[in-house]
């Protein structure tokens, strides 16, 4: 039994989880609300024999990751909002040769510079993003400090299993809150574990050419490789948590900070005889469609609870249920939802006072 309990911030738990997973290269650029990841790495990476670099910007930080990942290290970067935009080039490159890496997105609210506080309105960027070209990233959404550590820890294994980028999608609230956290066992990673790394090898031996995979193995083989991989990831990696869904009539769908409030809302509603349940995607890509397939007959509709202006995850819910059930979205922009607000909204849905959503 691991009794390594500590009180930590979400951001610190992400950083410590990465270090314990054998992450030995971090490059990033400060931006609220993720800067503590960078700060924690600056202090602790050297102690574990790794490299911390405060990059001159997010683009170059990602290029360092492109090099470090190709050289075989477990590596990570982190950012938010406008900084994450600049990471898209690097994510596309990593995806072009199928290099594993873990990128943290601590969402802040708004367009442009936006706010520095929590938001979930960059869901699409995290889930549909990945820069130019056709690629998929596995996106894990922690809802507690404990999950910040455990999902980040696991993310490195998943990234290597599929040779794929894995994104940790947190938000300003999950990243900033302090909670009890059970840290995973530290482990080391062997930079020579995989045969696709670049290391400098004797003449006459097989060399690796890290560039678009299709340039190395041809379009046909490369297309097949990535499509098979994306299908396998989609099939095998869907994760979710269900709460009081067995007899639910209305199911809340929420991840990250919103999902925590939703749990309180479910309890509160049930006290008043409203059969509310919660489906919390732990992976938002692949979206847990399997969870929707097994929902009980009693479910009459779904309510996404999102800190965004328009429904974003709602579209994924509509796809998951193939438009067979109505979708409602309780959207709270830069405010963290309240349990009362969620229950009130659900009462209105039940009373028929709210129109189902298609888009926006």
């Amino acid at each position, binding site marked *: 039994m691991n009794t390594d309990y500590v009180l930590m911030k979400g951001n610190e738990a992400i950083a410590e989880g990465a270090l314990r997973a054998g992450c*030995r*290269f971090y*490059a990033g650029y400060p931006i609220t609300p993720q800067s503590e990841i960078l700060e924690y790495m600056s202090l602790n990476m050297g102690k574990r024999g790794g*490299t911390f*670099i405060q*990059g*001159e*910007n997010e*683009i*170059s*930080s990602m*290029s*360092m*990751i*492109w*090099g*470090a*990942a*190709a*050289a*075989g*290290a477990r*590596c990570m970067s982190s950012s938010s909002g406008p900084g994450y935009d600049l990471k898209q*080039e*690097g994510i596309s*490159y990593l995806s072009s040769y199928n290099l594993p890496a873990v990128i943290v997105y601590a969402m802040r609210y708004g367009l442009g510079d936006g706010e520095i506080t929590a938001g979930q309105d960059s869901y699409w960027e995290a889930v549909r993003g990945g820069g130019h070209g056709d690629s998929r990233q596995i996106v894990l959404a922690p809802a507690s400090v404990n999950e910040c550590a455990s999902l980040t820890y696991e993310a490195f294994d998943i990234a290597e299993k599929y040779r794929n980028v894995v994104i940790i999608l947190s938000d300003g609230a999950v990243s900033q809150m302090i909670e009890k956290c059970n840290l995973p066992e530290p482990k080391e990673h062997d*930079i020579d574990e995989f045969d696709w790394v*670049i*290391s*400098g*090898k*004797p*003449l*006459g031996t097989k*060399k*690796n*050419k*890290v*560039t678009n995979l299709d340039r190395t193995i041809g379009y046909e083989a490369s297309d097949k490789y990535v499509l098979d991989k994306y299908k396998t990831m989609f099939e095998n990696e869907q994760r979710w948590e269900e709460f009081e869904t067995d007899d639910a009539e209305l199911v809340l769908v929420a991840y990250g900070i919103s999902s925590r409030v939703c749990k309180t809302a479910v309890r509160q509603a049930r006290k008043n005889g409203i059969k509310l349940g919660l489906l919390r995607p732990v992976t938002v890509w692949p979206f847990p469609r399997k969870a929707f397939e097994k929902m009980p007959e009693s479910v009459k509709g779904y309510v996404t609870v999102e800190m965004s202006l328009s429904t974003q995850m709602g579209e994924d819910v509509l796809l998951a249920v193939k438009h067979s059930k109505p979708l409602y979205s309780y959207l709270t922009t830069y405010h963290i939802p309240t349990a009362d607000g969620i229950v009130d909204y659900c009462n209105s849905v039940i009373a028929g006072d709210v129109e189902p959503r298609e888009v926006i």
Partner: protein
Amino acid sequence: MATYRKPVSIINEAGWCGGCGHGVVQRLITECLEELGLQDKAVCVVDIACSYWSLDALDYDAIAGPHGRCAAVATGIKKVRPDSTVYVHAGDGSSYVIGLSETCYTAIRDIPITMIVVNNGIFGMTGGQMNLATTLIGDKTVSSKEGRDADTMGHPVDMLNIIKNLDVEFAARGALYDAKHIDETKRYIKRGFENQMNKKGFSIIEVLSPCPTNWKMTPIQAMEKIKNENEKMFPVGIYTDRGGETV
């Protein structure tokens, strides 16, 4: 009498245009690595531009792009694999324009890599557009059709004059227009690799190099232009050498 043999590191043909300087630069790089016995440790970083050909031409582990980010990519590799010989072969658009900050901050961090910059005064790969850092005033390109004009496009800049002040290990500029200059360039490149071998800091070697295709000149005219015009703006020689020895 000297005998010349092709470096064994070159295993495939590259697709550079006739008279292009990139091939000479690749040849010098491989000769230096082999003469120093570093060929088995070499990791080659090329840009998504004309240097890209080297990726497949050489029997080295290699990585390409993103355009302009080579010095940062090399930083990532060198930090993970400090015993490898990591070098960059990139253009002047990559290194001094889009990747100016990557080049300068790699220099500022004094990352012990060897960076070779091909200064051909133009964006070769994309069809010959003006290079903000290196196209000479008056030079016509497809994006400065009436000649580069300082009032609207600014002046070219000698980046080695800036980089030499960043406390790097070694910064030098060579040219390729005659045997003497090729030899000198080779000595600079070799010095860059020796520095890496001896765990010293950042070395950058810029090479004045022709792009006959986009300059719309014969290879000989292109060499003459470098000698008579480009070298005046971009003098060859050692800009800084922390080791202090004369090359």
